């Protein structure tokens, strides 16, 4: 078998089309577990900020979870909030600096458990911030415990036989909930289970940021991310496990565009078409940005 030397850049004429890491990351290093989906989302929203050329007026507000370690490696002016409180902190930042791009970075434990009222009220007030939710359906940092988005049947450390609706209740579909609020201008649920979904998620980040910069209202991007450690599955099975559990309940797609809430049927139809289109693009040699 011929192995190509990939230790250095090619010597024949070639164009670099994707960089190792986004410029807005000070280092590629992080201590996320193997197979974690969170860095995939982080790359995409940071690259969107670079692409929109608004880096020098961007402020992040970090919640508390595994992703909090990116607070130190993102080259972004940042406020560290308490667990669940990031949307309120972001509100204070944006009200004082209305020309800035302000986003929160939160997990499902942070946003949907501890801070549910914060995100809903911030959305209802139509605060011109973007809340980013990395949703893996478990408390990753504590080691895989049930959150408010854990789907029925999903195994976690405190639902060993799977989440039992009768005993543990039902998951909150936070994106759908936020979309219902009048103050929300753009709401989307992305996923990072394959390259096509990552590319779609990137577009969602971009649209959310653009909507915020136009001052249209509250914007929200939820991203389903793999947590093989917290799910107790092999890293390679992460994407498929996520599709079969979280992905079946928290349906991917743009949930609210231009103030209109879209139906699940619309989302399903679009998901099939988009995935086919993106797979085709990849097969032809790359996703059109």
């Amino acid at each position, binding site marked *: 078998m011929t192995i190509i030397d990939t230790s250095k850049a090619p010597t*024949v*004429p070639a164009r670099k089309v994707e960089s190792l890491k986004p410029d807005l990351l000070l280092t590629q290093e992080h201590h996320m577990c193997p197979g974690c989906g969170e860095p*995939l989302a982080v790359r995409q929203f940071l690259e969107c900020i670079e692409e929109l050329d608004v880096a020098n007026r961007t402020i992040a507000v970090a919640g508390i979870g595994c992703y909090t370690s990116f607070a130190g490696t993102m080259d972004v002016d940042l406020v560290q909030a308490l667990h669940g409180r990031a949307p309120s902190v972001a509100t204070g930042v944006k009200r004082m600096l209305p020309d800035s791009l302000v986003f929160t970075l939160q997990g499902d434990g942070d946003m949907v458990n501890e801070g549910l009222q914060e995100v809903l009220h911030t959305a209802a007030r139509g605060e011109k911030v973007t809340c980013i939710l990395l949703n893996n359906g478990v408390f990753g940092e504590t080691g895989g415990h049930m959150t408010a988005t854990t789907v029925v049947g999903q195994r976690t450390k405190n639902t060993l036989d799977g989440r039992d609706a009768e005993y543990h209740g039902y998951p909150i579909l936070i994106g759908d909930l936020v979309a219902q609020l009048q103050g929300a201008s753009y709401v989307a649920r992305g996923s990072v289970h394959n390259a096509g979904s990552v590319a779609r998620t990137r577009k969602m980040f971009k649209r959310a940021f653009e909507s915020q910069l136009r001052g249209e209202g509250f914007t929200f991007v939820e991203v389903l991310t793999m947590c093989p450690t917290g799910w107790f599955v092999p*890293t390679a099975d992460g994407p498929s496990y996520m599709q079969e559990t979280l992905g079946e309940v928290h349906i991917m797609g743009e949930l609210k565009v231009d103030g209109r809430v879209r139906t699940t049927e619309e989302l399903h139809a679009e998901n099939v078409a988009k995935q086919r289109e993106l797979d085709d693009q990849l097969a032809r040699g790359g996703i059109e940005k």
Partner: protein
Amino acid sequence: MSDTGGTTTTSIKSRGTVTIDIAHCKGCDLCIPACPPGVLAMSTEVNHMGYPYPQLSPGCTGCGACLYVCPDFVFEVYRFEQPVVTEVAGAAR
């Protein structure tokens, strides 16, 4: 396929390539199924952290799918100005 002195070789065209920072790879395998032409495979060797890492065979299209799904930011993606042809031993797959 060509026959040069009794050895069967196959010409494989690569439209692009990647660099792989194997030192930072945590061996999660996500890039392997993500690669549309299927030219990535995990090594049998391990890096200094004890993780196997992806290795590239000829046929890369430079599509970037591996980079999109890599949590550890080990890839960089290049597209060749002119496709690079590699002669590999054996019959075409």
